[in-house]
């Protein structure tokens, strides 16, 4: 037993990612953890989106399955799994069958390099960000083939739209990312890096999040990325590929049941993936607020209390709502369920106060909080914006974001190299 604990501890206290340490077992554990965490996040996201959207739209959202509809996503998942998996007669069965797996594979593989903490990544690749962009771009293949294999007009048009959209917005996205990569190399401590962990460490070393770097250049880059990432994940207001009023459901019109749920899963994990990129690149990844300014150990302690506190707050919310539940025998099970859920959350919160847990979890907590902020934005957009028309979407991508991105690239280079440039220029003028 003691040996086991020591074994685990040696993993936990390692200063390398599992990939970096070359430990396959540990890597598999991490992969499982990321996979489970992601699935839970998608389920939670499903519930949250319906709930938040509902409250934005003066309605209640799911209320029946479980207290406040908490079990709704699970019920949905069961329903989807039990549904008949229809393959249209005229469809190209093999391609139709493979397409959702390509999308899911692409959406999940990117998480290999997402750094949840300085060592909390499956691996730290030298080409981390390149890998993420590359693999996430593979999901286009799945969408295109899904649309084509359905052998139907609406999916085909949806697939054409979405591939055109994703390919064009990848360009603007890439430009914004390159400006960040340039920023990583613009100081004494660090050379430039493509590694996700390296980028965050560069932000730590330079003492500011890249969103504030060379104000307003970092902010513009972030803005470009924030717009492009919504388009990249086919979400409102860029949800043309699945524009309900125009193309019924776009490329996955003909899909049902399990295979449809794979698209759903892929969409949400892709949302989380691009948000993680944004967080890593501009918002300091796992870094807590003010890691340099408030660097005293006391502050470390204060900030490491946040995870526990937030869980306790959630628990308190649960208990408050338990108290507000109708006092009717019919609601007894639901009330107890909600109280139980609050209890679990509270316990989790208490566990998070244990120092040994606390110090290891705080990075992940900050990362997840930032990503959650983006998730909220996604929902907010959906509740607020009408949908772009396709030509307007292309106009935004090619005529607004791309030139801005190019200008940003050049400006970042010029501002970053201003001392060297100045020296060079002086050399030219006064030889």
């Amino acid at each position: 037993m003691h040996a086991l604990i020591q074994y685990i501890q040696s993993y936990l206290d390692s200063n390398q990612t599992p990939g970096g340490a070359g430990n396959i077992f540990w890597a598999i554990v991490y992969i499982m953890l990321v996979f489970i965490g992601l699935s839970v996040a998608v389920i939670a996201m499903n519930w949250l989106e319906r709930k938040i959207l509902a409250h934005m739209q003066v309605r209640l959202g799911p209320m029946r399955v479980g207290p406040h509809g908490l079990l709704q996503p699970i019920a949905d998942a069961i329903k989807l799994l039990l549904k008949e998996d229809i393959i249209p007669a005229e469809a190209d069965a093999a391609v139709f069958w493979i397409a959702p797996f390509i999308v899911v594979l692409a959406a999940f593989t990117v998480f290999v390099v997402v750094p949840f903490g300085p060592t909390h990544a499956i691996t730290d690749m030298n080409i981390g960000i390149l890998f993420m962009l590359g693999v996430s771009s593979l999901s286009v293949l799945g969408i295109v083939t899904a649309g084509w294999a359905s052998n139907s007009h609406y999916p085909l048009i949806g697939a054409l739209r979405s591939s055109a959209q994703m390919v064009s917005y990848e360009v603007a996205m890439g430009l914004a990312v390159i400006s960040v990569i340039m920023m990583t190399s613009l100081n004494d401590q660090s050379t430039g890096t493509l590694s996700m962990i390296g980028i965050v460490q560069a932000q730590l070393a330079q003492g500011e999040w890249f969103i504030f770097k060379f104000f307003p250049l970092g902010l513009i880059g972030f803005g470009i990325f924030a717009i492009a990432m919504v388009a990249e994940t086919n979400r409102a207001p860029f949800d043309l590929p699945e524009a309900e009023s125009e193309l019924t459901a776009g490329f996955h019109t003909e899909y049902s049941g399990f295979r449809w749920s794979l698209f759903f899963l892929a969409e949400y994990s892709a949302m989380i993936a691009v948000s993680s990129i944004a967080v890593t690149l501009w918002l300091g990844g796992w870094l807590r607020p003010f890691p340099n300014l408030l660097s005293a150990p006391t502050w470390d302690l204060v900030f490491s209390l946040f995870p526990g506190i937030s869980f306790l707050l959630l628990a308190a919310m649960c208990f408050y709502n338990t108290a507000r539940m109708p006092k009717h025998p019919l609601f007894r099970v639901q009330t107890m369920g909600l109280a139980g859920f609050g209890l679990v959350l509270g316990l989790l919160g208490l566990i998070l106060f244990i120092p040994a847990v606390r110090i290891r979890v705080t990075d992940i907590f900050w990362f997840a909080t930032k990503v959650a902020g983006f998730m909220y934005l996604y929902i907010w957009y959906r509740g607020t914006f009408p949908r772009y028309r396709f030509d307007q979407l292309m106009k935004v991508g090619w005529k607004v974001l791309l030139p801005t991105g190019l200008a940003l690239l050049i400006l970042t280079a010029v501002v970053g190299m201003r001392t060297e440039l100045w020296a060079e220029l002086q050399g030219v003028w006064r030889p």
Partner: protein
Amino acid sequence: MILVEAIPVGANPPVATPFFFYLLATTMIIGGVLVITRKNAVHSAMALITTLLAQAALYLMLYAPFVAGVQIILYAGGIMVLFLFVIMLISIERAEKERQFNKQWLVGIVAAAALGGLFIAVYTTTTKGKALFPEGRMTYGETQNTQQIAALLFDRNAGQYMFAFEIASLLLLVAIIGAVVMAKKRI
């Protein structure tokens, strides 16, 4: 695969390198054969994508992660999507009825045999009976590869390919403009 291959030299020995090499090589060959034998162009394209991805993994095994990443982004993610785009817009039914191979298959076989002979000759003359996987490895590791490519391209002293690189990009630009001009009658 990536997990295992993305290991800096010296930390831990790579795992089952020959196994993965043969796996990827087989995938590539099967994919390549499928590309030319499938009648349905979309199936061919998907086989080609598989081949390209396997190739990217092979680059990783060669400690060239940057090239692997670019391979994925450009070929698998970019060019193949455009391929699929075009293929989807042509009539598959008609293409399936057409003859698949033209009459130059004899020349093709001769050329393929010649190429294979060349490979074997090069292998036998240069390695002279050494194992396919030599014990000695390349010395620079994964972590430096990207930076070294950058240095080769852009470094003030070591950079030799800056001009060639820029010329190539100019060529691509000309190609793009040409395509636009040819495709659109009035701009």
